[in-house]
């Protein structure tokens, strides 16, 4: 294996005029990007048996919890344990396994069962649809208002840059509904319903046709499994199994919603405009990933149950590196941030959640100091 380091094939910034949101010069940004690239290169070269064993172990646990949950529905007094077990299974399946495998984090293993092109997860959204909106749109254009559809998901007002409309008075209600029906929301997200309402897209024709076809197929299978076949299989316990499956899906919805909302919406996380990110360098992309994400501090259990999205910053810097590496990488990333004087947004779950909830309520009302249309500086506070 020969190693020759070369600059990646991305455009370098031609105009030296950076928006005030960038506290680094173009040269500093390049140096910052090089340090991140060096980390990536080192970790990729080091991937091996430990990473493979880890993900296989998580899969084993997930399947174990799943089977145990399904079986315990036959023993009525164990209903709460069955629901808990199935909930844990679904959370592990969606987060530490599904999300990360579909990012291609384990493609290097050559195992079709852990390959981003083959894997599908235990939730309504078909893998194929989700990967486009998430891996490409969200991870490439992270927090660029108007380009990253994950800023408010086309439903919520999560940034001052989004112009206020009376519709947003319902912000807290929409957030609550999204949390409750999160797996359905994630599934519908790919249809770009806001574009449909704006008359720029047909709900099931044109570009939405293949997306809709995949949705019908996947939703059919998911509904059949959780709400028809398994309940029928449990015979006299039909209703309790049905209810148990619904509760497990709800628990997963609430948990994943909360973890994911802590990733980009706590106070202090920066958003960017399309103009600011034109001709962005690779260093600039890393910079935006860093300032556009927030971490959650907590126990090892929290990290596993969040699919290590508690290290959203590291995930956005290195989306295709196995997530189990993020905790160790975060030490290095924080040290680099300190040297460059960059903010590293992190805090315990309750603090980040409170901050997100506050934003959801605050932005349901018009922003107090209205901006002039020319202004490109957001009010999102940034550490200098």
């Amino acid at each position, binding site marked *: *294996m*020969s*190693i*020759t*380091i*070369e600059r*990646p*094939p*991305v455009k370098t910034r031609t105009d030296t005029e950076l928006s005030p949101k960038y506290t680094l010069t173009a040269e500093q940004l390049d140096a910052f990007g090089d340090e991140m*690239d060096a980390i*990536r*290169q080192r970790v*990729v*070269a080091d*991937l*091996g*048996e430990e*990473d*493979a*064993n880890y993900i296989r172990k998580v*899969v*084993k646990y997930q*399947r174990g919890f799943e*089977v145990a949950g399904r079986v315990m529905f036959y023993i009525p007094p164990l209903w709460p344990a069955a629901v808990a077990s199935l909930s844990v299974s679904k959370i592990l399946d969606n987060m530490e396994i599904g999300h990360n495998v579909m*990012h*291609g984090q384990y*493609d*290097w*293993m*050559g*195992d079709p*069962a852990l390959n*981003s*092109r083959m894997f*599908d*997860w*235990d939730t309504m959204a078909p893998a194929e649809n989700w*990967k*486009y909106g998430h*891996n*490409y749109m969200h*991870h*490439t254009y992270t927090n660029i208002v108007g380009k990253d559809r994950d800023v408010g998901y086309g439903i919520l007002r999560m940034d001052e840059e989004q112009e206020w409309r009376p519709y947003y008075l319902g912000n807290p209600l929409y957030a609550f509904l999204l949390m409750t029906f999160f797996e359905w929301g994630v599934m519908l997200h790919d249809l770009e319903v806001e574009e449909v309402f704006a008359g720029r897209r047909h709900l099931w024709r044109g570009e939405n046709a293949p997306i809709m076809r995949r949705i019908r197929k*996947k939703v059919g*299978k*998911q509904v*059949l*499994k959780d709400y028809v*076949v*398994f309940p029928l*299989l449990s015979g006299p316990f039909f209703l309790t199994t049905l209810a148990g499956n619904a509760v497990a899906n709800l628990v997963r919805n609430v948990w994943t919603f909360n973890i994911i909302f802590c990733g980009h919406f706590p106070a202090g996380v920066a958003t960017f405009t399309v103009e600011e990110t034109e001709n962005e360098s*690779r260093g600039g*992309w890393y910079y935006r990933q860093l300032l556009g994400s927030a971490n959650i501090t907590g126990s090892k259990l929290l990290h596993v149950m969040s699919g290590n999205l508690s290290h959203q910053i590291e995930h956005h810097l290195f*989306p*295709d590196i196995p997530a189990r590496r993020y905790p160790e990488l975060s030490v290095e990333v924080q040290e680099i941030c300190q040297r460059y004087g960059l903010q590293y947004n992190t805090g315990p779950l309750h603090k980040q959640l409170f901050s997100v909830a506050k934003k959801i309520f605050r932005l349901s009302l018009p922003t107090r100091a209205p901006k002039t249309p020319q202004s490109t500086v957001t009010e999102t506070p940034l550490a200098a």
Partner: protein
Amino acid sequence: MSIVADATTRVLRSRFAAALATPHGVDRYLELVNPMWAANEVRARIVDITREVDVPGHPPVATITLQPTSTWRGHRAGQHVQLGVEVDGARRTTRVFTISSPESKAGDRFTITMRANPEGVVSRYLVERAEVGTMVHLSQAQGEFVLPDHVPDHIVFVSGGSGITPVMSMLRSLQRRTHRGRITFLHYAQSPEHQIFAEELEEIRRSGYGIDLHLVYPEQGGRNFSALELERIVPGFRDVPTWLCGPAGLVDAVRPAFEGSDSLHVEYFKPPVVSNGSAEGDVTFTRSGSTAANSGATLLEQAEAAGLTPQFGCRMGICFSCTATKKEGTVRNVLTGETSSLPDEDIRICVSSPEGDCAVDL
């Protein structure tokens, strides 16, 4: 297969089982209980490893006996199988190996025979490091280089080196079928001590029915299989159904002798093409059938320059939208500088630039 086992298999392969196991599939659960249980996939346990040839200073040859899962549908003599192993417990690498045992039925044990290719990750692992009990991943048997059900009265086998394996499977099948026709078998090996299956061939020579065996060793002055030599051994050989398997050199030497005749069946495996590190050579897009001089740019850019419109996303190696299969050649990851020369490898074309000749399935 017993009635119970048969019924179990039926249930496991049913739509009902699939509905319960969605979206992961039944095999993802079965394998965790017992790796030999499968509903659709094929896996096998290595049950025996025998060194066939072990000449000091030369890569050894071994025969591996495999006990497949009940999902194995059997094979026809001459077919090959894709075999994947997890080398060092992490990276699964898959290669094609020819089956050397006679034709098999569903679930039957079979053998593969291979030389430990010095650059071959899988063959070296199987011959030198694998242990009895190791699990491997399989495809179903594949390939059109097979013995017909009705074998003509006179047939010819021509093989060289480890190319003897499919021919051996055919020969063994014919022995088992107690075939009564004539078989002329020409084999080319470096020297007698490099001869694979030497004892068995000697036994067949002595007691086999209608078998005319010619083992040729260049070290002992054995002649190449030219048209003249073929005509000497098999008069009118161009009209005799012939199966040819061996290294490219042997195939290139024999094929012209059959020019204009349709009695020749050929099989040979290409070794991986390793580059010399330059951006010269040609890039071939196999699906669209176009070829262009390698410009040194990423494969995505070169494909677009060639007028193709491959799928892509971020164009910076993070989203995996552009993943495509590289059929052969060396590519360098422009982000990490890593190079890789494996055939049939999934690569992100937006961050892979070819070094030398390269073929991609686009």
